C-alpha cells in the first residue's frame, strides 16, 4: 500500500452523487445549432480558419491554436457555418465573446479520421502535435491545453505521472461514470501519455474512496500495466492539482511554480480518454461527458454532449422547471460559476450543469459580521488565514493581502462553505486579486508613460538647443558680414556703433553662457548616465526572464542611452575647451 499524505483543512459537504449515477452515459438528440466559443479555457483564442457559409464535416478543424497556450476547435457535427460573431458564453460575467455558429444538417457526417494505433512508433513531438491538433484541453475544470502541459513535461525529465480521477466536488459524476464505462480507453490514454513523456517511473491514478465501482474498474484494467490506483479518504478539495500531488507524494508545488518543476505531470482522467481518442482513433475533441443534476430537472444523469450544445437544449431534454430552480450553475456547487442565461454553449471545461431547487441551494442570508471564529482557517487547504484576508480585502490593503499570500488561494470555497456568518469570502478574494493585478498593470503602464514623457522632454530640449545654436550662428554670421562690409558702415555712424555695441553685449552674454551651458550639460550627462544604467539593468532582467521582444526593445533603449551619453560627453568636452 502506498503511503498517503493528508492535506490540511478541507470540508465534507454532502456528496449528492447518487442521483446522477442511476443510469449510464446517455446521448442527446442533435441540437439545431452549435455555438463554439474561440476561447474555452485559459490562454489565447483560437484562430478561425473557416468562413461564414462554408459547409463543414464533423471533426473538421474550424480554428487552430494561435499561441503556445491555446487549443484548436473542431466541428462537433456536420453543417454550415452560419455566423462568426460575439455570443453570450459560459462565463461568470455573462458577457459575450467571439464564437463560431454551426447550423447542423442532421447528417452528422464525419470527416475522414486518421488514427495512429501504433503510436509507439511515433516520436514524442509527433504525438504532441497530434494532441495539439485534436484540440485536447484539460477536461477537469481550468482546461489548460494538454499539449502545452505535456510540452512542459518534455523540457524536464518527468518521473511521476498523476492521473486525477478524484472528482471531489459534490454532485459531479462525469469522471466516475466515464471510468466505470470506459476504463480500458482511459488506461490506453495513460499509456500514450506515458510513452510521450518517456515512461515516467511512477504512474498513479488518484481517486477518492467514495467511488468503489470506478476503483474496481480501474484496478481490473491496470493489472500488469505498472499503473497504480491510489484511493484515499474523501475530502473536499482533494482534487485540486496541488492538493492531489501532496496527497499522493507528500510534495508541495512551490508557490508560483508548476508541477513540471518537480518532475510531475498531472492530467485529468477525462483528458486521458480524450488523448486516447485523438491518437488512436484520430478523433478530435468534440464531445465530453457532462453531468446534468439538481432537483429542478426531472432526469439526473450523465450525457456525452457535443461541445457547443446550448445549455438550454440540455435542459429542455430533461424536463427542466425554471420555477423550481434557484440558480443555474456550470460546474459543481463549490467552485462552479452561476450562469446568467441558459442560452450559452457547453464547452470543453463544462463538467456539470447543476440546476438546484430552492431547498437544495437556498439563497443565502445576508452576511453577518466575521466573528473570527477561525472555522475558515481550519478548512483552508492552503493554510491561509481567510478571516485576515477578508479583513484586509475589505480595507483594500493590498500589501497585507499579499503578505498573507492571497495569490496562493485556490478559490476552493471551503472557507465560505463553513463560515457561520455566511460571508462571501471567495468573492472578496476574487475581487481583490483583480484589483491587485489591475494596480500592477496600471503601475507598469504609468511607468511606460513616464518614460515616454521624459524621452519626449529630452527630445524637445535637444531640438531647442539645436535650433538655438543654429540661430545664433546665423546671426553671428550676418553681423560679421555687416561689420566687415563697408557698405553697412556707410549708412550711419551712430547706428553702426549701436549695432556693434549690441553685438558686444550679446557677445558678453554669450561669454557667460558657456559656464551655464557646461553646468547644464553636466547635468544632462549625469541624467543620461543614470538612464543608461537603468536601461542596462532592465536589459539584464529581460535577458534572464523576458521575451525576445522585450529583449530587443531593451537592447535598443540601452543603445539609445549610450548614444546620448556619448553625445553629451562630447559636447561637454567641446564646451569646456
Amino acid at each position, binding site marked *: 500500500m502506498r503511503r498517503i499524505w493528508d492535506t490540511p483543512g478541507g470540508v465534507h459537504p454532502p456528496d449528492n452523487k447518487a442521483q446522477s449515477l442511476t443510469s449510464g452515459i446517455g446521448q442527446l438528440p442533435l441540437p439545431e445549432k452549435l455555438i463554439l466559443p474561440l476561447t474555452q479555457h485559459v490562454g489565447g483564442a483560437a484562430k478561425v480558419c473557416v468562413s461564414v457559409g462554408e459547409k463543414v464535416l464533423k471533426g473538421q478543424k474550424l480554428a487552430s491554436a494561435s499561441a503556445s497556450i491555446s487549443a484548436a476547435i473542431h466541428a462537433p457535427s456536420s453543417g454550415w457555418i452560419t455566423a462568426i460573431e460575439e455570443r453570450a458564453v459560459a462565463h*461568470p460575467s455573462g*458577457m459575450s*465573446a467571439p464564437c463560431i455558429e454551426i447550423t447542423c444538417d442532421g447528417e452528422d457526417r464525419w470527416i475522414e479520421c486518421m488514427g495512429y494505433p501504433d503510436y509507439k512508433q511515433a516520436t514524442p513531438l509527433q504525438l504532441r502535435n497530434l494532441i495539439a491538433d485534436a484540440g485536447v484541453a484539460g477536461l477537469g475544470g481550468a482546461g489548460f491545453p494538454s499539449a502545452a502541459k505535456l510540452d512542459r513535461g518534455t523540457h524536464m525529465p518527468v518521473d511521476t505521472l498523476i492521473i486525477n480521477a478524484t472528482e471531489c466536488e459534490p454532485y459531479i459524476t462525469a469522471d466516475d461514470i466515464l471510468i466505470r464505462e470506459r476504463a480500458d480507453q482511459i488506461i490506453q490514454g495513460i499509456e500514450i501519455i506515458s510513452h510521450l513523456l518517456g515512461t515516467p517511473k511512477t504512474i498513479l491514478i488518484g481517486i477518492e474512496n467514495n467511488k468503489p465501482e470506478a476503483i474496481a474498474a480501474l484496478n481490473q484494467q491496470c493489472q500488469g500495466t505498472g499503473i497504480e490506483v491510489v484511493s484515499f479518504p474523501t475530502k473536499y478539495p482533494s482534487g485540486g492539482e496541488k492538493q492531489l500531488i501532496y496527497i499522493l507524494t507528500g510534495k508541495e508545488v512551490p508557490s508560483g511554480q508548476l508541477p513540471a518543476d518537480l518532475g510531475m505531470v498531472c492530467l485529468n482522467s477525462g483528458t486521458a480518454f480524450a488523448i486516447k481518442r485523438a491518437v488512436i482513433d484520430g478523433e478530435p475533441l468534440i464531445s465530453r461527458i457532462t453531468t446534468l443534476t439538481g432537483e429542478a430537472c426531472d432526469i439526473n444523469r450523465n450525457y456525452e454532449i457535443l461541445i457547443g450544445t446550448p445549455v438550454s437544449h440540455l435542459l429542455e431534454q430533461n424536463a427542466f422547471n425554471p420555477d423550481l430552480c434557484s440558480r443555474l450553475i456550470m460546474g459543481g456547487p463549490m467552485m462552479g460559476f452561476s450562469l446568467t442565461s441558459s442560452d450559452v454553449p457547453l464547452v470543453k471545461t463544462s463538467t456539470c450543469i447543476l440546476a438546484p431547487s430552492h431547498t437544495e441551494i437556498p439563497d443565502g442570508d445576508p452576511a453577518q459580521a466575521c466573528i473570527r471564529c477561525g472555522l475558515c482557517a481550519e478548512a483552508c487547504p492552503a493554510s491561509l488565514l481567510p478571516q485576515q484576508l477578508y479583513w484586509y480585502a475589505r480595507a483594500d490593503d493590498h500589501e497585507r493581502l499579499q503578505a498573507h499570500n492571497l495569490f496562493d488561494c485556490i478559490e476552493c470555497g471551503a472557507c465560505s462553505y463553513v463560515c457561520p456568518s455566511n460571508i462571501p469570502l471567495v*468573492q472578496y478574494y*476574487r*475581487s481583490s486579486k483583480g484589483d491587485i493585478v489591475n494596480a500592477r498593470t496600471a503601475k507598469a*503602464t*504609468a511607468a511606460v508613460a513616464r518614460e*515616454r514623457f521624459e524621452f519626449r522632454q529630452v527630445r524637445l530640449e535637444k531640438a531647442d538647443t539645436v535650433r538655438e545654436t543654429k540661430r545664433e550662428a546665423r546671426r553671428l554670421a550676418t553681423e560679421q558680414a555687416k561689420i566687415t562690409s563697408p557698405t553697412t558702415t556707410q549708412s550711419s555712424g551712430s547706428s553702426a556703433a549701436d549695432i556693434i555695441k549690441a553685438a558686444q553685449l550679446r557677445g558678453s552674454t554669450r561669454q557667460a553662457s558657456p559656464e551655464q551651458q557646461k553646468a547644464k550639460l553636466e547635468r544632462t550627462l549625469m541624467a543620461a548616465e543614470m538612464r543608461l544604467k537603468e536601461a542596462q539593468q532592465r536589459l539584464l532582467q529581460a535577458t534572464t526572464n523576458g521575451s525576445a521582444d522585450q529583449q530587443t526593445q531593451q537592447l535598443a533603449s540601452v543603445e539609445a542611452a549610450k548614444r546620448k551619453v556619448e553625445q553629451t560627453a562630447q559636447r561637454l568636452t567641446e564646451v569646456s575647451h
Partner: protein
Amino acid sequence: MITLLTDNTMLAALIALVGLGTLFGGLLGYAAERFKVGSDPIVQQLDELLPQTQCGQCGFPGCRPYAQSIADGDAINKCPPGGQATINAIANLLDVTAPSLDEAHGEEEIRTVAYIREDECIGCTKCIQACPVDAILGAAKLMHTVIAEECTGCDLCVEPCPVDCIDMLPIVENIGQWQWPAPPNPIDLIATTASGMHEDAA
C-alpha cells in the same frame, strides 16, 4: 562627591535625570543614524504615485512638475485622472489627511483612449506636437493614427485638431478583463431591506 550627592537628593535626582536624558538621547540619535531607512527623494516617490497621464489638468506641464510642486508644498488634490485613489495614496505618503478632489481642475472620469477618424485627418501634425507621450504616428499631409496602448487618454490632442477628427473613446471592458466586483456591503443590503420593511409598516 558621594556624600554631596547623598546629602542633596535634589541634586542627585537632577544629575540622574540629565544623565539618563543624555544617554537615551544619544542612543536614539545613534540608532536614527545607524538604522536609517534609505529612500527615494520625495519627488520621485510622489511621481511614482501620480497616474502619468501627463494631461496638465493640474496646471503643470506633466506629472513630474506637479510632483515637484507638491514636494514644495502645493495642494495634493489637483489631479483628476488619479482621482481619490491617488489623493489617498499621496496623503498616506505625506502623512496628511486626504482632501477630496479639487473640482476646479476637473472631475474623475473613466479612462479613455484617443481615436483618430483617419479618413477625415488632413495630416497637419498638430496632434503629434500636443501628445505628451509621443503616442501619435504620422507625417505631414499624411493620415495620422494613435498607438492605443501608449495613449494615456490625456485629451490634449483633441483641442488642437483643426478638423475635429479625434474622439476620446471610453475603454470598453472585454471578457478577459472582467473581474468579480467586491460583494456589496452587507449593512447596506440589510439596511435597504430593513428600511423597506419600515415603510411597509408605516
